[in-house]
């Protein structure tokens, strides 16, 4: 089953449902249009690095491409922050 999320205006206004992959958006057309702007390119995230020779661990910058785990939620978190929306996931029983 795909990942699904809902983005809704705070206070319970317009809403849009986003699923992936492949990506699809349903709901308020204007909100969908604005959210779609965040679903284009790669997303930067931090992750662990490991030097296999020395065992030294550290922090590295990751580029998440569309379809990578974490890419969709990364895009939607950015959209929620920029557009002041609430990001939720439907329950497992509501598939």
């Amino acid at each position, binding site marked *: 089953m*795909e990942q699904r999320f809902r983005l809704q205006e705070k206070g319970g206004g317009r809403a849009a449902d986003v699923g992936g992959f492949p990506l699809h958006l349903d709901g308020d057309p204007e909100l969908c249009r604005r959210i779609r702007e965040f679903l284009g390119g790669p997303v930067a995230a*931090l992750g662990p690095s490991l030097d296999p020779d020395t065992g030294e661990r550290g922090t590295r910058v990751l580029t998440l491409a569309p379809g990578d785990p974490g890419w969709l939620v990364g895009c939607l978190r950015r959209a929620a922050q920029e557009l002041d929306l609430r990001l939720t996931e439907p329950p497992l029983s509501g598939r």
Partner: protein
Amino acid sequence: MEELVQLSPYRSDRQYARLETYRRLGLPDATWAAEQFSLRIHVSQDSPNGAEKRASEVWETMDRLPLQVKDILRGVIDEVRLDSEDNFPTDTLGTWRDGTMRINRDWSLIPALRSGGWHRDLGYDLLRATLVHESGHALVEDPRGGIRLRDTVALIAASGWLPHPLDDPVPYGPVGRQVSTLSAYYLKRLQQLDPTWDGDLSLGSPSLPPASQLDRDVMREVSNFNRLRTKDRGSLRLQGSDQLIRRLRRDEPGRMTRELAARGLVLEDVDAALRRRRGISLYAEVAISETPAEIFRCIHAPFTRAEHSRPALIEGERVLLEPWRTADRAVGARRLALAPERPWEALQLVRRGVGRELGR
């Protein structure tokens, strides 16, 4: 009964002078780092172009760090090295180990950071995030007295790490409702795997297995077949909540409902447990041993907003910040030092020329 907060051994009672104060007096930045943080500084000279500019960025970022992180740099880190890109695995920003923090000074060579689309403060945000995250590792794992393993496990439990409900249904029942009961359960299971996991010792203690074994014992997937065949001691097989939700969504709902019922659970129990606490970041969900340092970063670095994981932040405040805050309150607020302060140890570093390595 409430446990008394153990005072942080890293809290310093010395004041800090600003980098600007040293610059105004014509003193080198590296002298500021040596005197204010008792740090040895090393800048690799193999490709000197831009080294001095990059070093300035690092010192300016250190100057703006929160007081607790400054105390960790002063009390736990012995050396900061600015090394060139070829001394790191691909795309690495920085590392920490055994009192040495290494910062990659060639971020312009990291492909992910070449895009023109990043906002102008990304370099500063990432540098700050790296310094705070690696200081978080030092706080948790420092051999001279990091936080106790039972507190590390509490941070893991508060960050939404759970087993698959068909592997272990216990965390989806009453045990999983409170962080305290869930972390006690995880610690007990960890000690069943390996009795040397002593909850009262720090991960950096030589008497405990290394942090990499924590990942193995808590996260690694070991099938029952392999476990019997190789006499493997198994694993708690915890997964990050996002990863687990993705996995559960792939399962066939009818079969899942039947198998859960055989273990006394319904899908709503699983859903409620998964939503109760969430991972703080993608980074924190990659490895258990990264979770505490990521919580520390999310508390201290405003670059990260992690409202979706309040339980982890609350537990992080209790475990990572409160011991330091309590110690800080006991002594009273520190004001900025108005002039360079030169303790004996720092003077020795400056006399040995450590503060002049940049050749200013």
